């Protein structure tokens, strides 16, 4: 008879990209103009996806869904949404 002693453990582990490469959902890409940016970090705090690096304000395009919240909230207008090729 087959043994039923199976080790139970959590079957999911925290990893980036749990929903796949979500960058492919994007229709518009946020582009940061580092000359205008004053590093206020508002885009970082409002990003629902946690793809913006806090100090350098760089965006991880692999997972950015292109929602555009950062561009609307940017007080200096340093982030613009450009149409994806």
């Amino acid at each position, binding site marked *: 008879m087959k043994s039923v002693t199976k080790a139970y453990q959590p*079957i999911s*582990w925290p990893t980036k990209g*749990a929903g796949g490469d979500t960058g492919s959902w994007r229709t518009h890409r946020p582009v940061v103009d580092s000359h205008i940016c004053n590093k206020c970090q508002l885009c970082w705090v409002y990003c629902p996806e*946690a793809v913006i690096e806090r100090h350098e304000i760089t965006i991880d395009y692999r997972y950015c869904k292109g929602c555009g919240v950062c561009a609307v909230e940017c007080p200096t207008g340093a982030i613009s949404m450009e149409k994806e090729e």
Partner: protein
Amino acid sequence: MTTSIKKLPDFEQVLSGNGACGGCPSTMALRIVGKALGPNAIMLLTPSCAVASMGMTPKLAYNWPCINVTFATAGSSASGITHALEIMKEKGRLQGELPTVFSWVGDGGTYDIGFQALSAAAERNDNMIHFCYNNEAYSNTGVQRSGATPRGSFTTTTPTGKRQPKKNMTRLMLEHNIPYVATATVAYPGDLYDKVIKAKSIPGMKYIEILAPCYLGWQFDMPETVKMSRMAVRSGAWLLWEAENGRISFNSPSSLIISGKREAEPVNEYVMRQGRFTRLFKSAAAESRIAEMQADIDCEIAFMRERAKITT
């Protein structure tokens, strides 16, 4: 004074590449909550968008142990876990600080389906935090009417606009006499962070409700999630307050509206931007129905102003 954005911690509890829609207010708020709670926590989820955005097995987008429970049991499951943890600590099987038990539940799992279990957990004063991210409809299943849907709002089950006002859940929880009740929204992350930090330090049942403008359900443009949340607060449709042991204090900018230093913006502007109210504007009785909505908001502001004067 609220915590400045630059002082928020660096670590992320919500990982990139989750399954939520772009511009989702739930992950936006959960990120801030995660920064306040830290990694030592246990998360409970009832069926909601938050479960759909967890990602696909064997990957998980939230950096906590997550338990998916049935719809009606957010309160009772969290109670069970807190009691188990306390007993494990007593027996010496668990060292160090006890993890924070919190449930991350939508408005359906709080207002309607999960109310009984939540009310009972509040009555027992179990040591947990219940977060309700309120997007004012059952958005996960395609926008059906819930107890949190405001008057006049279009959903798939109220095609001509809801006729009844929304249930006031925060006030109901306040009257349960629990140690901490607060409201927050995604546009004010410093305020939300402070409230979660405070809730974490208080033993007993804590309830925090977060207004989460869902662009799909509310039918506005995707980038305007934060803007809509800010407009809700400025028009007085959502009031920011916290109550420690029944003592209510208002947070800026709602405190200015309550004290009369700033006039609440008319509801028209807030309502006009949302597609879920457009049918209302086209109907013959548009003016009277908008007046009804404005009356609901004014009534709530007046009530809360007087309720805050009662300190027991």
